[in-house]
C-alpha cells in the first residue's frame, strides 16, 4: 500500500471563543482514493479542509498534507471578475511563478479538460453557475495537484447541473487518479463520487463511520438508480442519523 498523502492524527480544533469544532479526528487519504465527508451542518467539515490546507490551525493533534501540490475548490467559484476565464485559470500558475510557455500549455489543457476552451475570453459574469465551477476546477488542474480538496463545490447549482458536474468530476478522477477529499451535504453525491464515505457526528465533529464504496471507476450516470447504490446510500444515511444531535 502507498504512503498516505493526507493524514489527520488525533486532530482537534477549538476556536478562540471556546467552541470545540473537531475532536479526535484520525483519517488518512492515499493516492487514488476519493474520500467524501458528510455530516450535519456545523459539524466541522469545512474546518477539516481549512486545517488540511493550512488556512486554519489545529489546536490538538497533527496534520500532514502536501501543501505545494494541493488543489482547493471552494463552494463559491471565487473567480476574479476582472479576469477572463483564461486569465483566471492562469492565476495559480502566475502565483507559483511558472514559466510562460509551460503555463500556456497547461492552461490550454485544463480549459480543454473542463470544456471551456471556447469560453476562454469571456468574463465570469457571462458564464452560468456550472461553467464557473468548471473554471474554478480548471484553475487548480493547471498545477496538476496530487491531492484535491473540495468544499461543497456544487452546493449552489441546480440538481441537473450538479449531477452533470458529478459525472464529469468522477470521470476526471478516473482518468487522473489524484487523491480527493470532498465535503458535501448530499449522501447521493458522496456515494456516487467516493471510494470511501466518512460520516461525522454533530459538533464537536468526530468520525462515526468509515464506509467503503466499491463500485469500479469510471462510474456511469445510471449507477445512481441501482439497488446496490441505494443500499450504500441507506447505510450512510443510517450512520448520519446515529451521529445527529
Amino acid at each position, binding site marked *: 500500500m502507498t504512503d498516505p498523502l493526507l493524514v489527520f492524527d488525533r486532530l482537534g480544533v477549538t476556536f478562540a471563543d471556546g467552541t470545540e469544532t473537531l475532536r479526535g479526528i484520525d483519517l488518512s487519504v492515499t493516492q487514488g482514493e476519493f474520500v467524501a465527508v458528510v455530516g450535519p451542518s456545523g459539524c466541522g467539515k469545512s474546518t477539516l479542509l481549512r486545517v488540511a490546507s493550512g488556512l486554519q490551525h489545529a489546536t490538538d493533534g497533527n496534520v500532514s498534507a502536501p501543501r505545494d501540490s494541493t488543489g482547493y475548490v*471552494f463552494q463559491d467559484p471565487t473567480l476574479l471578475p*476582472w479576469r477572463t476565464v483564461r486569465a483566471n485559470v492562469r492565476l*495559480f500558475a502566475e502565483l507559483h511563478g511558472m514559466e510562460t510557455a509551460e503555463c500556456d500549455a497547461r492552461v490550454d489543457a485544463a480549459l480543454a479538460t473542463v*470544456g*471551456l476552451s471556447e469560453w476562454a475570453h469571456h468574463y465570469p459574469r457571462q458564464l452560468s453557475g456550472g461553467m464557473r465551477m468548471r473554471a474554478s476546477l480548471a484553475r487548480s488542474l493547471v498545477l496538476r495537484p496530487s491531492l484535491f480538496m473540495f468544499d461543497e463545490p456544487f452546493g449552489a447549482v441546480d440538481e441537473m447541473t450538479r449531477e452533470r458536474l458529478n459525472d464529469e468530476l468522477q470521470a476526471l478522477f478516473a482518468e487522473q487518479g489524484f487523491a480527493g477529499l470532498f465535503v458535501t451535504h448530499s449522501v447521493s453525491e458522496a456515494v456516487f463520487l467516493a471510494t470511501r464515505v466518512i460520516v461525522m457526528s454533530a459538533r464537536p465533529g468526530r468520525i462515526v463511520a468509515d464506509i467503503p464504496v466499491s463500485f469500479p471507476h469510471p462510474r456511469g450516470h445510471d449507477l445512481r438508480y441501482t439497488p446496490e447504490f441505494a443500499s450504500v446510500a441507506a447505510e450512510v444515511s443510517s450512520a448520519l442519523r446515529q451521529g445527529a444531535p
Partner: protein
Amino acid sequence: MSGTVNRRTDRRPGSARMTDIAGPVVVFVMFIGLWYLVSEVLLPSHKRFLLPAPHTVVREGFLVWRQGDRRGLQPILVSLWDSSKVALTGLCITIVFGILLALLMSTRRWIEKATWPYLVAVQSAPVLALTPLIRALIDGSTTQRVLVVVLISVFPVVSNTLFGLLSADRGQHDLFTLHGAKRLTRLLKLQLPSALPSIFVGLRSAAGLSVIGAVVGDFYFRGAGVVGIGAQIDVYRQRLWGSELIASIILASALGLTVFLVFGWLSRKVIGRWHEPERGQ
C-alpha cells in the same frame, strides 16, 4: 461539456433608449417653465433684474461676445478656463495623494484609526475658517486655490479607495493565502483590481467637488489680474448683472458636469466589461 451564457433580457434596448431621452427632456422643459414662472410672474417687477428670464440670459450672457472689460461670454470663458486649470490640477493631486494615503491606511489598522479623525476634520471644516491659516502659510493665489480643491475633494477618494481595498472577498483572499502570495502580489492582483469600482465612485464624487473647490477658492483667494469664475460671479453679484451672473453659474455647473461625465466614461472603459454597476453609480 456544454453550457449556457447568462444574457440580460430584462430591458428592450429600443424602449430603454426612449425613456432615457424623454425623461431628461421632460424635466428640462419643466425646469425652464418653473424659471419663467418665477422670473416673469412670481417676482415683483422691481426685483426681476435679479433673475432675468431664460431668453434674456441667453441673449445677454451667451450671445454677446464682449462688452467693456467684464460683460459678455468671452470674459466668462476666460475665468472658467482659469478655474478649470485650478480644478484639474487640484484633482490630479487629490487622486494621487488620496489613493496613496488609502493604500497606506489599508496596510495597518492603527494607521487607519490614527488617520480617520484628521480626514473627517478636513472634510467638515468650513473653508472660510481655514482661510487665514492658508493665507499665512502659503504664497500665491493659484497654490492657495489648488489647496482648497484638494481639501474639499480628497475625502471621497480616500474613503472609497480604502473601502474597496478592504472589501475584497474573503474566499479570494484565501486563494492567495493558499498559494503563498506576498503582500505586494496580493495588492496588485487582488485588492487593487477589486477596489476599482469603488475607486471610480470616489473619483466621480471628487471630480464634482473639485469644481466646487475651485469656485469656492476663487471667492477667497484672488490674485492680481487673474480672475477665476468664482471671483467673476462675485463681481457680477456686486454689480447686479443678473444675466452674466446666471450664465457664469450655468457654465460653472457645466464644467462640473463635464468632469463628472468624463470620469463616468473612463469608469465604463476601464471596468465596464466585467463590472455591473448598481443603479445610482
